[in-house]
């Protein structure tokens, strides 16, 4: 059964077993995103619980225009960014970085996609949340530019620029940590 079919069945029958299917399919991925963004296991656990309650209470609002995964990831990213903002752990989530208006150099996708996992994790933990989230959306969730744009309410060209900047930040951080050119 596809996600969308499971959602329809749940809404029709209110049978918890259908919601359980969705939980089993997505809880691990959502937890992974929460732990990557919040960097705290307990925080991530509370967040996953609250995110699933949000999903449950808003399930009837899922229109099916986007993929179900895109819809729940958007709830997840927005929730985590909001939680960080409230805790003010990362001021970069509060304001757009206006300091760099230069066109960033193009970083090859292969550099990110073929990186050793340990290093990837270290660098992701070092870069600002806004850069990390957009890289996760593109490379982990394989969301299209259009889907990211709809989620962030930005134009496709703005999204492309954000991804370029995030990749450049990632590369710069990598070089700073590992003292070797990427």
């Amino acid at each position, binding site marked *: 059964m596809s996600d969308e079919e499971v959602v329809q069945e749940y809404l029709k029958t209110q049978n918890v077993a259908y919601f359980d299917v969705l939980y089993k399919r997505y*809880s*691990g991925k959502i*937890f992974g995103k929460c732990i990557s963004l919040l960097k705290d296991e307990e925080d991530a656990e509370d967040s*996953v*619980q609250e995110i699933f309650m949000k999903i449950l209470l808003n399930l009837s609002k899922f229109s099916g225009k986007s993929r179900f995964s895109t819809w729940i990831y958007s709830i997840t990213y927005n929730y985590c960014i909001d939680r960080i903002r409230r805790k003010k752990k990362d001021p970069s989530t509060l304001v757009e970085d206006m300091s760099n208006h230069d066109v960033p150099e193009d970083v090859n*996708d292969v550099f*990110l*996609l073929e990186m050793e996992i340990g290093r990837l994790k270290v660098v992701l933990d070092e870069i600002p949340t806004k850069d990390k989230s957009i890289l996760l959306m593109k*490379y982990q969730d394989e969301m*299209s530019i259009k889907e990211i744009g709809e989620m962030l309410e930005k134009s496709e060209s703005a999204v492309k620029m954000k991804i370029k900047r995030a990749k450049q930040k990632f590369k710069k951080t990598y070089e700073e940590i590992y003292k070797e050119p990427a």
Partner: protein
Amino acid sequence: MSEEKENKTQKNSFKELERMQLEQYKKNTEKIGGRVKGSLGTIGLISDIIELYFSRIVDVFINLSSSSAEQNVAEEVEEEE
């Protein structure tokens, strides 16, 4: 588009990291699952209560308002007499 296609055929460390996290945090998600089910049960119970008693509460309000309206009419009639 061609770039997106290309990404799907080559190695993807982001996906590998996701798989690794799925394994690493399996116990956490099982634990949270119990909590989510508990909340689901509570929500179900509340909605059952609302479903069961809501119509009765509405009836009570309708009866109350209609009886007070009848009382007003009766008082007006008495005054006129």
